[in-house]
């Protein structure tokens, strides 16, 4: 039970994607122009991540190690096609908003990374919990980033007017530069918070985990 909780909780803080482990940057930057877009993207990722972890963990003993990356990609791609069709049927406006980034979930390194680093080595229940934790962490981060950008960029939150009526929207925030700057500031903020917590507990300063592509667990496999 303890282990289950630990695997779940790590996705929410210590390995929170994409702020702690820089995985899946493209959707993070691109779809967070509003909080609801971030939430929608997050939900699609939760679905794909949980299902791919479940399937991969179930058949982890059958997959030949040499072609495992190809297997993971095929499984993820089939799930992404499912999500695409489901979204076209039930959430068409969202599908149009997210545009090209729905099919691109397939190359989101968060999903391949979890498959390689966790699901292919751990039993089914732990893999599902891991996927849920990571997926929920990813969704919350995307919603948060989307919320901040939407609040300042268009003065609304989930489409509701929040700022005073004379507020002049800071359009920079919902454009591409705002995405980069906003994410950079959030990462810096996370570093400050971690430093304060560590000082309070007098822990040694942990190694910074923000490593771009290096922190993607599938890279090790790629480089073989």
């Amino acid at each position, binding site marked *: 039970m303890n282990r289950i909780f630990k695997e779940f909780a790590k996705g929410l803080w210590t390995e929170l994607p994409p702020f702690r482990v820089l995985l*899946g940057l493209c959707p993070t930057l691109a779809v967070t122009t509003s909080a609801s877009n971030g939430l929608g993207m997050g939900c699609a990722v939760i679905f794909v991540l949980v299902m791919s972890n479940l399937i991969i963990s179930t058949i982890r003993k059958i997959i030949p190690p040499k072609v495992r990356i190809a297997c993971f990609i095929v499984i993820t791609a089939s799930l992404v096609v499912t999500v695409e069709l489901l979204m076209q049927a039930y959430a068409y406006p969202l599908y149009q908003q997210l545009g*090209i980034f729905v099919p691109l979930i397939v190359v989101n390194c968060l999903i391949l990374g979890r498959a390689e680093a966790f699901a292919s080595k751990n039993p089914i229940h732990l893999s599902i919990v891991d996927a849920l934790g990571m997926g929920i962490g990813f969704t919350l981060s995307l919603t948060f980033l989307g919320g901040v950008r939407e609040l300042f960029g268009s003065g609304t939150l989930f489409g509701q007017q929040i700022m005073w009526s004379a507020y002049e929207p800071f359009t920079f925030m919902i454009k591409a530069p705002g*995405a980069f700057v906003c994410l*950079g500031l959030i*990462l*810096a903020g996370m570093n400050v918070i971690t430093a304060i917590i560590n000082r309070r507990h007098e822990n040694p300063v942990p190694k910074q985990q*923000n490593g771009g*592509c290096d922190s993607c667990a599938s890279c090790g496999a790629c*480089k073989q």
Partner: protein
Amino acid sequence: MEYFLLFISAIFINNIVLVQYLGACPFMGTSKSIEVGLGMGGAVIFVMLMATALTWPIQQYVLNPIGLEYLQTIVFILVIASLVQFVEMFLKKAVPPLYQSLGLFLPLITTNCAVLGVAIMVQRNDYSFMTSMAFALASGIGFLIALVIISSIRERLDVAPVPRSMKGTPIALILAGLMSLAFFAFQGMA
């Protein structure tokens, strides 16, 4: 003239990384030195061209006529993954010097969303084959330019006094934001 405009638009106005956010992971991960940036950029241009040249006929002559458009994602990623593997094997045997400089980056490209993104984008925009190839080449060059610029700035940044919490990725992201702002100015010229 049409191709010229397409080139300018794909390289500067709609730069694939800085304006369309595709390929942000390798953009952040492999931009620590200029040599690495050049290698990655070269490999991306190469694979992007090959991938578009292969996926365009598959979509137009196989998937569309038999009504399997919805399999686009899965077919494209499989084609790209096997293409990358094949190119790696071919270069290793046939052109060892090129393999030396690009080889390390090739496997990373399978999960580079810029390659799959361009392949899907040319389909959504209904480009003809030649336009698609020109678009792929221009997007690759745009990626290379952005990568070389940011890696040369980051080399300087290594010796700059940056606040401790901003070191590494946060400052690189803000840098990318400023670069993106600069590239946004091109939109005013279009």
